């Protein structure tokens, strides 16, 4: 902290002792923060221990397991459905990321740098949809998709989730701050609009595209209600929905925990790689 540098030097000399005392007083706060942090991640750790315990053997919290094994984790991969659900989740999230990044950046570019009739009204209408909770649209959306024969298909599950106003708004805000002269100059040089988009807009928005891509991936990977109602067969069922079907005799606790552990790996990888990025973008944009 730079608190001390802004202080007048005379006072600074006098304050040296209280300042050290103040720093000394920090350690209880540090310990408290450490405790809260450990408590927050403890469910992950306990889950991992249970997932590594042989099925139906005593484990935490009653006693520390005698042996640890990765058989459960491997077992989930051979369990019926699990790999299929994982692939389906990857398709659901992956395809959505690609299409949303493309369509949202195109729309964001037009909203930020183009003049066309109805622009402000359209932007306003896009933003207004934020106020409508998805659950309020669930029933009509389901009827619509089922009328289009989209139930139990990938497109029926994916396409309705692509209308994402947060993504459009974010891209528009970011592109609006880019200097217009860049685009003007390219146009004067005879570049086509499509080429300006691919060779200027996309490269210049790479950081925000990466952030947005991570969020869209997490939204879809973690999504539940829409896949629950629209993807009823194993062919399209996603991992979150599949996890809720794992109960009963053939699924002892250790296997449930192992499945949960495997399902969270992509989230943790994304988190580990991009933590600083995610944290900053939430602080700056309020992306949720």
């Amino acid at each position, binding site marked *: 902290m730079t608190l001390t540098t802004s202080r007048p030097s005379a006072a600074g000399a006098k304050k040296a002792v209280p300042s050290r005392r103040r720093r000394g007083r920090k350690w209880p706060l540090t310990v408290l*923060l450490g405790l809260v942090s450990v408590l927050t991640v403890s469910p992950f750790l*306990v889950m991992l221990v249970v997932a590594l315990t042989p099925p139906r053997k005593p484990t935490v919290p009653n006693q520390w397991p005698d042996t640890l094994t990765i058989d459960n984790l491997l077992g989930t991969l051979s369990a019926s459905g699990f790999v299929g659900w994982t692939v389906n989740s990857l398709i659901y999230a992956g395809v959505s990321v690609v299409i949303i990044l493309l369509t949202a950046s195109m729309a964001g570019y037009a909203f930020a740098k*183009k003049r066309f009739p109805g622009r402000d009204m359209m932007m306003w209408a896009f933003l207004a949809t934020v106020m409508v909770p998805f659950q309020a649209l669930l029933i009509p959306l389901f009827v619509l998709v089922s009328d289009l024969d989209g139930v139990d298909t990938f497109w029926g599950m994916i396409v309705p989730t692509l209308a994402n106003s947060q993504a459009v708004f974010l891209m528009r805000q970011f592109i609006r701050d880019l200097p217009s002269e860049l685009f003007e100059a390219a146009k004067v040089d005879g570049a086509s609009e499509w080429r300006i988009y691919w060779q200027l807009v996309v490269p210049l928005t790479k950081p925000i595209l990466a952030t947005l891509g991570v969020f869209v991936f997490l939204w879809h990977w973690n999504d539940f*209600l829409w896949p629950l109602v629209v993807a009823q067969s194993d062919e399209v069922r996603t991992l979150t929905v599949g996890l809720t079907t794992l109960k009963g005799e053939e699924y002892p606790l250790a296997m449930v925990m192992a499945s949960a552990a495997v399902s969270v790996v992509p989230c943790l990888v994304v988190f580990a790689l991009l933590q600083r990025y995610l944290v900053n973008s939430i602080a700056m944009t309020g992306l949720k």
Partner: protein
Amino acid sequence: MRHRWRDPVTGLLFVLPMLVLFAVFRFVPALGAAGMSLTDYQISGEWTFTGVDNYARLFDDPIFMSSLRVTLVYVAIYVPLTVLVALGTALLLNSVIFMRGLFRGMLFLPYVTSFIFAGVIWKWVYDFDGLINGLLAHLDLGPIGFLDDTALVLPSLALVQVWKGFGYSMLILLAGLKSIPSSYLEAARVDGASAWQRFRSIVLPLLRPALFFVLVIETIGGFQTFDMIYVMTGGGPSRASYNLVYALYDQGFKFFNLGYAATIGIVLFVLVFVVSMIQRRFLDRSTT
């Protein structure tokens, strides 16, 4: 000259994909929801116009009224709890320097997981054979039926949502705290203001916009809770955790009363809309 003519066309073309997605999968369903709420729409697609019958039925439906009460009680428990935890951790992170990045990451970690993951883990944490009751048994205490007691189930569920989500609000509040000029706090300190006085008279007023944003976001999130309840309690015991979204889901996909389910969706929309309007009025007043 040429590009001035081309601009409106290219602008529209760039917006077009997203515009079509929004028109078909947001605006049409929004109108559909309003329309369906005035009918007895069946899963077969047959319907007759019933006017405001569905809305009148809401008041005579004890299950709906109970789900509304559960939703409001849940929000009343969840929102203060999560805002307090987010504010507390944000304040700690703002004053501790030692390993701050690590602690911030640990506290944020649950946010990247799904509510289904959180539900699966915490269902076991709360179970009679689970983590907490196991630990209590070592102390000859318990067992406590966290999810089996009608009085405990909502606080228990709220705690899971706090765990899963407070990291987001924490980051918003942390950004708000960082934007408070340290010279204000330093001046107050020199004038002999205690830590509590500084928090009360400087930090809290300046943090108000961030705090209000968090309050609104979390309130809306509390109204929309579903995934976690679905996997942890199924709405039980005796509908003690059966909320609006659950009622909507059951009416739509268990009893196939699509018209009535759409009506519950409208109620949910109105709740969220009212909260958003309060936010807007507040923000207008605080900026003038």
